[in-house]
Each structure stands twice: as C-alpha cells, then as structure tokens.
C-alpha cells in the first residue's frame, strides 16, 4: 500500500473507523431475546483513530451492541434489518442500512464477513457459546485455519499467543471443562490469533468473577500497547479505569456524549446514575458509603423476622463426580427472613451451595432445619401446634418448633431463579406461566385469577400478560421468573447471579424486587459478584472459599466495609 501523501489522506489513514449518518433498525423476528431488538441506531457519526481505546456505555437497549455489530460486519451480513427512516409498510423499505460504515478502509456492507476476519476481532459476552471446537489448541488455531494460513505459521502464532497471555497451561485441554474466566481467555486468544487491527468486545466481563475481570483488563492493556484499536461495550465500568481513553455514552440509539475518561469520571454520581451507568470504581462506592447515611435496606419487617427464626444447615458436604470436595460446610446457621448474599471467587462453591440448598443435587445428604419460636396465637380450645401446652385466650404458643427438610422436601421449600432464566420458562404466555405455578395448590379459579392479577401488577407485568415469555427482554423475563416464585409461595428464594450484565437502573429494580419479596417474609439468598447489588438490598453475607464457609456476617457498617474490601482484594489478586 502506498504511503498517503496529502495531509487529508494521512488523516484518513489514521482513521480506522468512520461512521457517517448511519441509521439502522432491526426486523422484529430477526433477533432473538435481545434487549436491543426494539432499538436500532439513529444518526450515528463517529470516527476513531488507530490505537484508541474506547468504551461505549449506556443503559440496556441503548444500541451499544448494535454499534459493535456494525463494526465487525455482523450487521448487515448476519442480522437483517430495515433502515430507520423507512419504517413504514411501504415496499420500498429495502435499504436495510443507511449511511457509510468504513473500517480500516473497507466498506462494510460490501465486504464479506470472512474478509473482515483479519481486520476486526470480536469477543462476545457468553464464554460458553463462543467456541467452535472441543479442545483449546484447535480453538486458537481455528481462525487462521479458516483463512488458509500455512500450518507452520499457525503453530508459531499459537505458541506466541500462549506465551504472551500466559496460558501455556491451558493448551491442549477440553474447553467444556474450563471455568468461565479461562474460557474467555481462550476466546481472546483465538481472536488474537488472527492478528486483527481492531478488537471489538461486547460486554466481555458479564459472566466473570473479579479475578478473571482483572485478567481481562490486563489483556486489553496488552493489546493497547501493541497499538491495536479497541472498542468495548460495557456495563461494568470500573475495570476499564486507566485503560480506556475515550468514552461514548449512548441512549436510544444515539450517541449522546463523547468524553475523555477524565471528563467522564468528573461527571459525578448523580449524572452517572441518570445515564444509567454503574459505578466507576470500588473507591467511588466506598466514598458513597462514607458520605451518605448508610441506608440500611433492613425494613422493620425483615428485622423482626431476622430475630425470630434461624436456618440451620447441616452436613452440607457435596462433591461432583471426578473432583474433590466442591462444598464442605458441616454446620452453619443463617437468619431466616434475611437477604443473604453469597460471595466468593469462581469455583468457591457458590453455585454448588445454591443447588444443594434447593435440593437439585441427587445423593446429597445435607439437611436444613428451621428452628425458632412458634408465634401463632392460639384460639380458645384449639391447639395451634401439637407440642404446645399453653392455653387461654391471648396466649401465645412459645414452644420451640423445629422442622427438618431433606432433599425432596427442600425442593418444595426453595425456589431458584436461575442465572439463565430461559431454562425455567415453559408456557406460551406470561399468564399461563404464572398459572402453572399456582395449579398445584388446588385453589378455585376465581381466587387464582385474583392472585395472578396481584402478582402481575406488583411486578409491573400486567401489560405483558399475553406475551410469550421468550419474546421479552432479559429484565422482563427475570421479573416473570420472580412472579412464578411468588406464585409458588415458597419460603426460600435463591437468586443465581441476577444482575450480571444489567445496567444501573435495572440493577436497582432487581434490588427493589428482592426487597419486596423480603418484606413478604421470604428468606432470600443471592449468589452474586455485584457489590452494588449487595449494598443495595442485602442484610447478611456468607463468604465461601474453596468450598468452606469462611465468614458469615451481618451487613451493618462494618459488614458493608468488609464486602468492599473483599471485592477490592479480589480485583487486585
């Protein structure tokens, strides 16, 4: 390629990305379960120079992911759509993408996807579904093999990358057996093998724990020093501090702000939350803690519950086949009626704990015992409970009641809102989904109908009651799952990573929902990596490490500080 001579040409050469007046709108059935399906892009004008590292942020559905898809060519070659301007039924709505999209001198709509492979490397959100091969080495070699590079060359590249990324120990292993963070590393390596000039990452840290996020940050910094251009669409902003130099804020398909990182940090937390963004850093969270009065999320109701009964977990020892003890808690006592955060690094046993609690692991011998004082008032002459001997009009039975629950019984006691909510939605409309949960309780139709109405309105789902659950956005699906949890009337509800990949507004909503459930007297367990969620709605915390219960404390001021310390420590290691 000739060296550009004129200043304009030189500047053009410096520009790796140029978007001019881009408009795009998805077709309704082209996209599955994507929050951005309704959105699209509007009047996007953007230019990026080589070597820049840009963060694209905004609320869910603002168009960040759509923007990344423009850059790597998935729009228009994979996702179909109409131009924003012609959203009518007119047959002339044939232009799917309006405007110019130029990446590294290539006109995207006229360039095939495989031609872009060597220019733009994409890392996606879900490590599980990104890999095409079964073993790691093949996966890293996949891209270059597709482009027909000679074998010797590919081997050299694989070796180089393994050395650079310190993943020599991950070579030659079965991908299905790796942890989430390791999978994401392999995904990055596999993209790096093509030596692209531009890296586009779409919420890469969503499913990762703090330690893996730190590795991801290192990787991005490494690419930066190699002179690559990087575009990251993200919710979790804090790990990109010091890495990104420029920030684009988007809303409703438009770019509403374009800051440098320093300007961005200076906007203050009020404006940040108005933009729907998460905290800039753990230090900021800490500062917030100190300045505001600790808004203890304990409502009077839950405080009362907390004192009344305890959950005693016995013999929570479990290990999966072919591995050592995944969980090893001989005995632990937790407050019934509290909102308990379960934290720990990946592999510490959090998911195992949640599954064992809900009775989903067969051959599990642990027991859950609810003990406390029975507080039911007794009517005259009628025994409230068998072991009670107190009589009289206003006597309160104060006998100690214990009920013990084994595996099968626990399944009726606990409800789990899974990390991938798609696994637990079965019916063809939201209404049927909730009815499914109520059916087994043998109520008559009218009572059921009332209950359903109540549940729907409390979760702001009334307008969606005839929609198919799978057609809703991620946040709405989660609310449907919570609605089914309510309908089941079970006392213990377990949330598995409810806020991974959610923006600030949605995270607050989830926190509100959890608090609402708690006010109804339910005990809530939340398995999470999200410090903001914990500080917003949890009352206690259980810290797991290597399958052992390392710490178990209430979230008063000291406790909250402990939480922040834990996450800071995780990020640093």
């Amino acid at each position, binding site marked *: 390629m000739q060296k550009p001579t004129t200043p304009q040409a030189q500047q053009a050469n410096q520009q790796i990305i140029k978007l001019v007046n881009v408009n795009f709108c998805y*077709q*309704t*059935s*082209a*996209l*599955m*379960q994507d929050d951005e*399906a309704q959105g699209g892009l509007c009047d996007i004008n953007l230019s990026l120079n080589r070597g820049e590292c840009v963060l694209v942020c905004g609320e869910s559905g603002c168009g960040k992911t759509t923007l990344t898809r423009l850059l790597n060519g998935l729009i*228009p*070659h*994979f996702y*179909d759509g*109409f131009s924003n301007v012609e959203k009518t039924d007119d*047959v*002339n709505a*044939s*232009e*799917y993408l309006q405007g*110019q999209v*130029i990446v590294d*001198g*290539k*006109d995207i*709509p*006229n*360039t*095939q996807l495989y*031609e872009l*492979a*060597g*220019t733009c490397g994409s890392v996606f959100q879900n490590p599980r579904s990104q890999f095409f091969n079964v073993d790691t080495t093949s996966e890293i070699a996949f891209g*270059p093999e597709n*482009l*027909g*590079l*000679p074998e010797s*060359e590919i081997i*050299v*590249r694989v070796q180089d990358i393994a050395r650079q990324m310190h993943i020599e120990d991950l070579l030659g292993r079965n991908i299905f057996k790796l942890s989430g963070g390791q999978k994401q590393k392999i995904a990055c390596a596999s993209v790096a093998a*093509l*030596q692209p000039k531009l890296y586009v990452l779409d919420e890469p840290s969503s499913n990762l724990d703090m330690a893996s996020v730190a590795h991801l940050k290192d990787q991005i910094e490494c690419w930066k020093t190699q002179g690559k251009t990087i575009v990251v669409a993200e919710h979790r902003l804090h790990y990109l501090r010091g890495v990104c130099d420029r920030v684009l804020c988007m809303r409703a398909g438009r770019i509403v702000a374009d800051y440098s990182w320093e300007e961005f940090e200076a906007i203050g937390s009020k404006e940040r939350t108005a933009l729907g963004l998460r905290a800039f850093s753990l230090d900021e969270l800490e500062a917030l803690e100190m300045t505001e009065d600790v808004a203890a999320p304990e409502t009077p109701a839950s405080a009362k519950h907390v004192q009344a009964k305890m959950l005693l977990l016995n013999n929570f020892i479990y290990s999966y086949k072919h591995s050592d003890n995944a969980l090893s808690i001989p005995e632990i006592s937790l407050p019934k009626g509290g909102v308990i955060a379960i934290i720990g690094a990946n592999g510490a046993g959090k998911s195992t704990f949640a599954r064992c609690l809900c009775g989903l692991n067969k051959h599990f011998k642990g027991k859950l015992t609810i003990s406390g004082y029975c507080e039911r008032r007794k009517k005259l002459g009628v025994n409230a409970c068998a072991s009670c001997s107190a009589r009289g009009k206003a006597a309160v039975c104060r006998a100690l009641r214990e009920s013990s629950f084994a595996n099968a019984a626990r399944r009726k006691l606990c409800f789990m809102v899974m990390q991938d909510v798609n696994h637990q939605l079965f019916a*063809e409309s939201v209404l049927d989904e909730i009815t499914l949960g109520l059916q087994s309780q043998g109520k008559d139709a009218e009572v059921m109908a009332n209950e359903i109405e109540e549940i729907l309105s409390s979760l702001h789902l009334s307008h969606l009651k005839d*929609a*198919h*659950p*799978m*057609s809703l956005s991620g946040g709405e699906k989660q609310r449907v799952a919570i609605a089914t949890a309510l309908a089941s009337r079970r006392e213990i509800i377990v949330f598995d990573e409810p806020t991974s990949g959610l923006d600030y507004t949605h995270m607050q909503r989830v926190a509100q929902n959890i608090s609402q459930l708690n006010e109804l007297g339910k005990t809530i367990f939340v398995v999470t990596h999200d410090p903001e969620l914990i500080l917003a709605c949890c009352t206690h915390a259980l810290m797991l490490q290597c399958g052992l219960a390392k710490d178990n404390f209430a979230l008063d001021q000291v406790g909250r500080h402990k939480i922040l310390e834990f996450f800071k420590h995780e990020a640093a290691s």
Partner: protein
Amino acid sequence: MGNSSNMTSSDVIRGNGSVNVKDNSNTSGSESNKVNVIDNSSDIFNGISEDSKVNAKDNSGYNTTEIAKDNSDYNTKEIANGNAKNTKSGGNSNIKSNAKNRLKPKDLINIGIFTAIFFVIVFAVSFVGYIPIFIPALAALCPLAGGIPFMLLVTKVRKFGAMLIMIILVGLVYILVGGISSWILPIGIVTGLIAELIVKSGGYKSAKKAIIAYGVWSIAIFGNFVPAFFTRDAYYQVIIASGYGQEYADAYMSFMPDWIAPILVLACFVFGCLGAIIGRAVLKKHFVRAGMA
C-alpha cells in the same frame, strides 16, 4: 514476522477484494446497487404480497413478515455481495436466482444445529426399537417425533438443499451407529431430493407442501426395515445368531410378512405428515410468538 504474516492473510483477504481506496467510486457504486435493489425488491414484494394474500385466505401460509424478512435477505445481502463480483448491469434476475439459492455458512451452521436437535429427540424415542417386537413401531414414532425440529429448520433456511443435507447427515450417523440402518442413507438421498423439489415448487412459502415434503422425507426411516424384507434369509440368520432363538425368529418373521412392507412405508409417510402438522402447531404456538421463527 508479524508483518509478513499480515501480508499473507491480507493478500488472501484482498484477493476477493472490495477494498476501496477511493471513496467516491465506492459510493457511486453502492448507489447504483441501491437502485437495482429497489427495483428487484418491488418485484419480489409485489409477488410475495399477492401470494401472501392467497395464503392468508387459506390460513396456511407462513407469516408475511417472515417472507418479507427473508426476501430482504435475498435482495440486500446476496445482491450487494453478488454485485461486487458481477458487473453492474441489468439482467438482475440471473444474479437473484443464483444468489438466492446458495446455502451460506450461516445456514450450514443452522442445519447442523437442527440435525443435532433432531437426533437427540429421535434417539430418545427410538429406544423402543431395542425391544425387537416394537421395531415396526419405529416407523411411526421417529417421524412423529422429528417433526418439530424439521419444521423449524425449513422455516429458517428456505433454500435448496437444507433437507437433503439433513437426511444425508442422519443417514451417515445411522451407518456409524449400527449397520442395520445403513439403508437409510441411499433411500434418504432419493426421498430428500423429492422433498426438496416439492418444497421448491411451492416457492418455499407453502406450509402444505412442507408437510407433504416431510412425509416423503420420512420414508427414509423405512431403511431400518429393508434388511428384514429384502435380504430376508440373511436377516433371519442374524436374529437366530444373535441368540434370540429359533422360535423367536419365527415369531418375529411372522410379524413381518412381505405384505407389511408397503404398509410400513405408508406409515412413515402418514406419521411424518402428522409430525409435521404437530411441528407447525408448536411453531406457531411458541416460536412465532417468541419472535424466533
């Protein structure tokens, strides 16, 4: 070393080049593309909208939005790419039909996924066949169970070859898993081709034709039984040799007299159609409402 390897891959990439150094030529090029695209699209959309009116009356067509979506697929992607290689002249109908019918990598991946799902479902159902007496029931159960993934595939990949590839894959795997069913492959190639032609004749829009096509396609399942009828003696020996014993073999063979063969073929067809009808109902109830089909 980094530079040289970049050269290699980018040589490859530029080889098929639409790398544009001059912006002007490109925009004018793409503008004429747009002009072509609009003309073609109006043809197709007009054609489709008439058909879709007919279908709407019969209540048996696919959704019009689906049709619109797919045709915009043909228009824009294919032609935009096709035109990069072809001259920008009229005679677009040729380019249209060539580009339209080609299976792209995205479709191939979809075919692989749906065949995997098909297998999981059919395999679970066909465990019944391990009890030899129920082997004939396979003719009914397998086509019935496989209707849902098949209809979904046909909806997503409306190009020539999807069904044919699927039956070839199914046949191949059956050969690998147990030689008895080796006949599924050759029969499947024939029935697959016929099925393709049926669906193509409906312009990939008619649901009725899709149902019939699946019925024909499922006749390949009869390949399970071919040894029993056409190499009767050998099969007889095999059953005895398996240790099932003489009386059992006799009893079994009396269950499967020669005249049952056409009945089994018919069963495959009928239950196939049924399976497709069920598949379509499930599609409408769930997948269309969820926006996935």
